[in-house]
């Protein structure tokens, strides 16, 4: 049966919208946007941006439009392997998304176009790079007009980055509360006083917030500014310089020491790696979720088998390090993201349908749950049958899961400060609980450890 539908996140822009037909994603361009689209394509801007990996490539198609009365063209953009959101990005991911947006705007201005929006949600990570996925974000630049997306850029990028850099990296989670970016008055209030001595933050956040308050009930005509293109370029460069100087180095985290505080021996670690690699090569999943992926060591084993692997971890420092590895090694099929498995991203926005929940973005061909079960079962008190249900709902087919017994020193640590109320947390209890949802395909004791690695197939 032919199934079409407009995507629920794509409704604001009168220029067009996304829709899917039989599982293929299309973007309808409306007649109202035809001139801007023609300029994007004819000016060479599209080619330049695609060549620089800053814009998603597309092809024009003969696909019927979803609503024909307003339609001008239908294009088919390259499919993004996994949609992620700014509240799931590490510091450097948000910073790179911000710098990509500004780089696009600078290139657009050179060819007399301008970004009409600067939403962080328009950026996705494709082949390891931050890239604009909204082909309709460009408009023909009119001399004298200020940047219409300036406020949005400051709210979506500059404010959260400044808060993460100067206050606490966990403040990225404000983006989960404020769907249109962090309100500048809130950012101004939360930032330390010393940021008022930083020209960029003083002007683009503190004074900007003050001006918003002062002029909140005044009407300003957009045509009356007379802001020169040079001044506009100066503004973009100022934002760029301000963002480039924002840094974050995880405090109290020894870079690269993640696996040194565990109780693995080298041979146990290598054995686990080899098993994950072998099973991924054997089952050939297209999409893998590594749940509790840490810095992505095991994600890289599934990625090496050709699978696009999303590496989730609760620790922003681990995700940051993982992303830096992706960048330095130019890896194309690993996407590190920040996620708390005990409270995963919900569906958000208008009608709760704009941003998909973690759950709605699955299920995947294969999930990895390595050294994570004890955190969920013991630290978070989730009974084993419910854990089996959780993993079954996210795995279309394969689950690679590690059981860590109570005798393991990591579990002993978790039990050290609390009463052991987990009589069923045994290998037998685990196998019984998971057998109701999975077939235990392979069971391998991890060498030189008390742990067991399983390859399970969803029932």
């Amino acid at each position, binding site marked *: 049966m032919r199934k079409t539908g407009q995507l629920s996140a794509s409704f604001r822009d009168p220029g067009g919208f996304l829709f899917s037909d039989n599982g293929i994603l299309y973007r309808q361009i409306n007649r109202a946007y035809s001139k801007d689209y023609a300029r994007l394509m004819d000016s060479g801007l599209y080619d330049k941006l695609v060549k620089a990996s800053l814009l998603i490539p597309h092809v024009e198609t003969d696909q019927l439009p979803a609503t024909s009365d307003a339609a001008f063209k239908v294009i088919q953009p390259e499919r993004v392997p996994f949609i992620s959101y700014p509240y799931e990005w590490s510091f450097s991911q948000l910073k790179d998304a911000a710098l990509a947006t500004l*780089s696009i705007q600078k290139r657009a201005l050179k060819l007399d176009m301008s970004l*009409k929006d600067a939403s962080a949600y328009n950026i996705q990570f494709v082949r390891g790079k931050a890239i604009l996925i909204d082909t309709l974000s460009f408009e023909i630049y009119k001399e004298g007009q200020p940047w219409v997306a*300036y406020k949005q850029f400051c709210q979506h990028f500059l404010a959260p980055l400044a808060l993460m850099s100067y206050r606490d990296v966990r403040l990225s989670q404000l983006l989960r509360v404020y769907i249109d970016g962090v309100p500048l008055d809130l950012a101004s209030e939360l930032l330390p006083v010393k940021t008022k001595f930083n020209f960029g933050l003083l002007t683009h956040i503190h004074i*900007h917030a003050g001006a918003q308050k002062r002029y909140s009930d005044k009407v*300003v005509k957009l045509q009356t500014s007379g802001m020169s293109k040079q001044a506009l370029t100066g*503004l973009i*460069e100022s934002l760029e310089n301000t963002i480039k100087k924002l840094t974050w180095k995880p405090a109290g985290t020894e870079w690269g020491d993640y696996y040194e505080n565990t109780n693995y021996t080298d041979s146990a670690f290598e054995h686990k790696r080899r098993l994950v690699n072998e099973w991924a090569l054997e089952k050939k999943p297209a999409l893998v979720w590594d749940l509790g992926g840490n810095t992505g060591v095991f994600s890289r084993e599934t990625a090496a088998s050709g699978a696009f692997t999303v590496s989730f971890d609760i620790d922003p420092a681990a995700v940051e390090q993982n992303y830096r590895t992706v960048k330095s090694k130019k890896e194309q099929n690993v996407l590190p993201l920040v996620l708390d498995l005990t409270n995963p991203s919900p569906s958000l926005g208008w009608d709760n349908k704009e941003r998909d929940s973690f759950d709605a973005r699955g299920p995947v061909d294969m999930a990895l749950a390595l050294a994570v079960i004890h955190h969920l079962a013991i630290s978070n008190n989730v009974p084993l049958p419910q854990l089996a249900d959780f993993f079954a709902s996210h795995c279309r087919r394969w689950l690679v899961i590690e059981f860590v017994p109570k005798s393991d020193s990591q579990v002993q640590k978790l039990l050290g400060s609390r009463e052991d109320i987990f009589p069923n947390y045994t290998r037998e209890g685990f196998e019984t609980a998971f057998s109701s949802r999975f077939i235990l395909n392979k069971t391998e004791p991890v060498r030189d450890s008390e742990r067991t690695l399983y390859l399970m197939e969803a029932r």
Partner: protein
Amino acid sequence: MHFSPVPYLDPGSGSFIIQILIAVLLGLGVALRASWSKIKTYFGIKPKPEEEDDDSGDA
């Protein structure tokens, strides 16, 4: 059919005004920088080569 030149985003009155003011300031800065490098050149100090713009490569 309505061909709207009006942006679909609300640029915000305050954001609109403040960016013009900031841009004027930044414009002044650019002018000052240019004069300063002229003065330095006058006294025989070579101006620093401009940083490579990542845009210039394929522009």
